[in-house]
């Protein structure tokens, strides 16, 4: 079919390969980003043992492949609007949300792989082959966890288009998401209703899995957490994508920033 989903993914691949060929600095920043977060985590925890460093490296990968996807998705859409590219992307014979999401997928996959690759030497040095296996598990978790978050990023970016402002919605949303998901405090410390909300958030399972990976204990719980993450992630992604579609329809009706 002309203008099919595969074409959109291919277009995204072509776009980001071309971009990175021209922007070596962007490539370097992507590779170093995991080390910046690792440095931050090490400074926060104060632990510098081999085990804690390896754990923090895994958490760094999870953070940079999940939370970052929200920023990237929203940022990509807004950049395309500012450069006027979005108008012509909207002319593709598919939904705009699909175009934005699917052209972003190759960038996400490539960057996630690069980030994992950048940490591989550290994990091999600290934990040998076990480190590589854990890195693979963390990457798989990250890929799964990014699915709903990219959807939320898309939704936020579409909201920004609708309100005709560059309001920093994510500045508000991400801390709330982090608190509710138990990234900053245990979920058990939350009031009752918020604990229920936490159960519905895919990020809760993501951070629980990150805790397991970091502690190296109860790794047998990982498959269950994977399943919960996949289920809630698919649901959240579907809701976000559907809501983005409604906003898109509203944009066509009201003459938003296309």
């Amino acid at each position, binding site marked *: *079919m*002309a*203008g*099919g989903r595969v*074409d*959109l993914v*291919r*277009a995204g691949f*072509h*776009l980001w390969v*071309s*971009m990175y060929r*021209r*922007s070596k600095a962007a490539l370097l920043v992507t590779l170093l980003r995991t080390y910046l977060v690792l440095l931050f985590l090490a400074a926060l925890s104060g632990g510098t043992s081999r085990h804690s460093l390896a754990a923090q490296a895994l958490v760094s990968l999870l953070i940079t492949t999940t939370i970052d996807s929200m920023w990237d998705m929203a940022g990509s859409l807004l950049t395309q609007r500012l*450069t*006027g*590219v979005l*108008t*012509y*992307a*909207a*002319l*593709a*014979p*598919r939904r705009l949300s699909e*175009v934005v999401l699917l*052209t972003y997928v190759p960038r996400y996959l490539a960057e996630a792989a690069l980030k994992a690759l950048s940490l591989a030497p550290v994990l091999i040095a600290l934990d040998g082959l076990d480190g590589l296996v854990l890195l693979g598990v963390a990457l798989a978790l990250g890929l799964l966890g990014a699915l709903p978050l990219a959807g939320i990023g898309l939704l936020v970016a579409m909201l920004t288009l609708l309100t005709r402002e560059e309001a920093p919605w994510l500045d508000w949303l991400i801390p709330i998401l982090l608190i509710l998901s138990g990234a900053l405090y245990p979920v058990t410390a939350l009031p009752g209703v918020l604990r229920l909300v936490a159960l519905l958030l895919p990020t809760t399972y993501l951070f629980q899995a990150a805790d397991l990976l970091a502690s190296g204990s109860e790794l047998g719980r990982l498959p269950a957490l994977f399943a919960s993450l996949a289920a809630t992630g698919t649901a959240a992604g579907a809701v976000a994508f559907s809501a983005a579609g409604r906003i898109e329809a509203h944009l*066509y*009706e*009201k*003459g938003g920033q*296309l």
Partner: protein
Amino acid sequence: MLAVEVIELRKSYVTCRRRGLLRCEKQVVEALRGVSFTARRGEVLGILGPNGAGKSTLVKILATLLLPDSGTARIVGYDIVSEREEVRKHIGVMLSVERGFFLRLTGRENLKYFGMLYGLSGSQLERRVEEVLRAVGLARHADKLYEELSLGMKARLGIARALLTDPDVLILDEPTLGLDPVSARRVRSLIRDLAVSGGKTVLLTTHNMHEAESICDRVAILDEGRILAIDTVEELKRKVSDTAFLEIRVAGDYSGKLAAVLRGLDLHVTARSDGSAGRLSIPVSVHSIEETLEAVLHTLRQAGLKVRGVSVREPSLEDVFVKLASREVSPHGRREG
């Protein structure tokens, strides 16, 4: 089948006028107030109007980027609302000369990206990108970064993108805005060629009268969301003004003779000296230019005067526009309707 058929399109926007920090006074702005027209295959139709006339709203609706409040439009038979995806396969759009591309990609890379978005792939994509680059004369500059291209090249790259899917209808919003005269002329020539040789229907918005006059088969004059008139430039001129001027240059011993010679023609003639030549300016009805010219030339020759040059200055499109727009203004200075 008509390439473009627009029937009673209407579109209003609600804008908010701030009154203090929290108060907002809503205002309804009618951007389009029942616009109807058609365009044939291979025709260049100019939508001429001042800023705020509704041109961009009309273009966005036809490009399926905005939904109308009421009315409808069909592009090669497909409805712009219910068959949006089909319409997109048959249109090529350029909404801005300078924006709409990735700055750090080359022209070729940008075209490939948009080609893929629009459903081209493999050898078909490669071939089409090369074809459109050649068509707009950018083959030699295709590997320059977009940010390194001149404004004229950017405009042509925009047209190249619009041509990627070999569409039946091109929708171009002010395609020469901000270009230098040479680049603008090149873009106009390209557009004209696409219609004449390529058989494309071109809808072109502009507020440049010269542009409309030079490349459009017909012109629709849009003001305050309404089409005031739509016709060929010649017909529009005839409709609003029936006076043209015959400008005649004569040489020889003309002083004192001209007025006497032409008195018999019962025409109001102004004559002035211009060095060794004289110039006559004769107002005539546009309906009788040929007959009057023949009579004047005959009389001048009989009087022994040598005619060095003849030109006809007809009312300009600008005259047409001003006259049509002023008709819409009531004696109190308010637009009617």
